[in-house]
């Protein structure tokens, strides 16, 4: 009898552990949620209009550096941004307009808007368009706390992100949040089979309002293409009000003329 009870107990324990294990990725870890929310609060610029100029320098082994400059108008309160290419001349006039989850690429050569994935790569670099808008991590990912790690000189909390659905580009990510201010300093992007594909290093941030930040230097490293890196700098940050018209397709069309 004792043996039977013991066996049943062991089976129940194993089942419970299995159920717990299976359920684990489906739940958010409260500690990780807190870290992610804190970071999103700092990078969420609701109530502010932001105008910035990003310069992207793409380095590829054996090739000359490719430079792109884009002007970004961002209004988080309306969940929208407009991005316009300023350099090189071959890209001039091209632009993105995002409204909510809808992202359009404007092609001046054909004067048409092409509907794109919201995570479209900007000008075939390793930098994606969602980097320019407000982060929505918890909508798309479940988060879990992995522990502490040191990145450069900073003590960091490491949070793992697992995509709720497979329609995110990188369904597994690891984020390293600086303990001193809660801002991410490094993110690693993995494929479904957990191969490391890209790493983003957030080198510097600028404060645009009280407890509100925007990154000013970022390095994207492609781990599949040997020696391919994209360095991004963010200059001329302004919080002056932007006319509503700027956040429209018509604005992009007009600017390309």
């Amino acid at each position, binding site marked *: 009898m004792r043996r039977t009870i013991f066996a049943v107990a062991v089976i129940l324990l194993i089942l419970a552990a299995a159920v717990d294990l299976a359920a684990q990725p489906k739940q958010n870890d409260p500690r990780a949620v807190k870290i992610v929310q804190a970071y999103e609060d700092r990078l969420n610029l609701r109530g502010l209009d932001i105008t910035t100029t990003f310069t992207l320098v793409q380095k590829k*082994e054996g090739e000359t550096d490719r430079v792109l400059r884009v002007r970004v108008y961002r209004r988080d309160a309306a969940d929208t941004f407009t991005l316009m290419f300023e350099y090189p001349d071959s890209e001039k006039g091209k632009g993105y307009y995002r409204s909510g989850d809808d992202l359009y690429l404007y092609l001046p050569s054909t004067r048409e808007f092409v509907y794109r*994935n919201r995570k479209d790569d900007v000008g075939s670099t390793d930098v994606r368009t969602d980097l320019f808008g407000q982060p929505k991590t918890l909508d798309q990912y479940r988060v879990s706390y992995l522990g502490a790690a040191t990145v450069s000189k900073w003590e960091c909390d490491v949070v793992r992100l697992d*995509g709720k*659905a*497979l*329609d*995110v*580009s*990188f*369904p597994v990510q690891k984020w390293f949040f600086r303990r001193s201010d809660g801002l991410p300093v490094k993110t690693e992007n993995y*494929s*479904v*089979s957990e*191969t490391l*594909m890209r790493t983003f290093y957030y080198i510097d941030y600028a404060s645009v309002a009280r407890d509100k930040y925007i990154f000013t230097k970022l390095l994207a490293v492609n781990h*599949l*293409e*040997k*020696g391919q890196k994209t360095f991004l700098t963010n200059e001329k940050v302004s919080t002056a009000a932007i006319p509503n018209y700027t956040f429209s397709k018509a604005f992009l069309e007009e600017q390309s003329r």
Partner: protein
Amino acid sequence: MALYLNLALKNVFRQKKRSFTLGINYAIVTFILVLLFSFSQGARVNITSNLVRASAGHITVAGQYVVVGRVFQGVLRYPEVERTARQTLGQDISVLPRYIVRSALYYKGLSKRVTFVGIDSSLETGFRDQIRFLKGSWQEFVDGENAVVMPAEIANYFELDYDDEVLVSTRTRFGAFNTATLKVKGIYETGNFFIQSQLLSHFAFLQGLDLADRDAASALYIYLPNPAGLEAKRDQLVKALNLTGFEAKKPKDENSALAAVTAASPRYEVDKRGIDRIELTVATINEVLGIVRTVLNAVNAVGTLIAAVMLFIIAVSIFINMRMSINERLREIGTMRTIGVEARGVTGLFVLENILLALIFTLAGVVLALLVVLLLRTAVPLPAGGNLGLFLNRGRLSLVPRALDILLIFAVITGFTALFSFFPARRGGRIRPVEALTKVF
């Protein structure tokens, strides 16, 4: 009649220089037309057979399916499609499922976008029979779950060798990136244009890489023991599939037929109809080749135009030749008329002389063209990856002369010559004997 023929034959080369000049024109036109028709027919046969052995069936089933508001490319419930095809078209048909993924291949920091074709190696032998392994073997490919067989050109680009491991990264049909490692189990070369840049992998492996359901395929290739009456058989299949719950249809034009056989698995799109369904496009090989046929018809049209211009020059030459010949042979005409040859007899003789000249040089043109065809088909190797790759069969230009085409050329040239020599010949025949014998030029 025999007398006329004999006389006409003797007269053909009376003015050697003039006859040769005109005859060479006939020969060149014939030469161009024979080569052109041989090329066109060869291209049609070659492309059809290579395409059927590589990237399409006699009937190809492709399409898209909607699951919870998302439109995915490919065929869902493909075993059911196969069952329906067998019930409709007979149990002796072959049905090959394919899974096609276009993605990036990485090796030691180098990358290249390539097309992976996932095949069921237990069913498919078409590829095996068309590729020549430089390294590895078919059996080693069959035995390795994550094996890949690639063309020598791609292996050379990456400096890959047998048993090397490569990384493949693809944006799956859901949008997320997925990666996997493949092991090189074969490096091949082929004379088939349609498979020369394809990397062969296993069907199930590519399904997994693309996060697809086990009953999803990019396309199904159906091969019939007798491909006659293909359109009717396809219509039967479409009907049967619709009765089974699929939304099957014929391709609306040649472009959509071609799109059906080249379908890969891109990221899903958002559905607007709001109903889960499986839409199938059932295309025949004739529809797939529609665009090729259009191109070949254009090539034929240009060639025919060139031939028409040359024929026009020939028409003018015939006219001038005849005028000169009649003027030179006035006494002969007068004598013939005096001894009782009627006007139409004289006309007939002149026409016959011209027809004989045309036939002799057309024959010479045909012989020359056939020799060139033989030379190109046997002795002139061309690179499979070159501009003419599509028209090569085992590294040689595919030229197929047809007796029907040659007979047609003979008929057109003979008819043309008869027509354009008749009017000046009739004028010669109508000259009165007295005039012919007394007129001096």
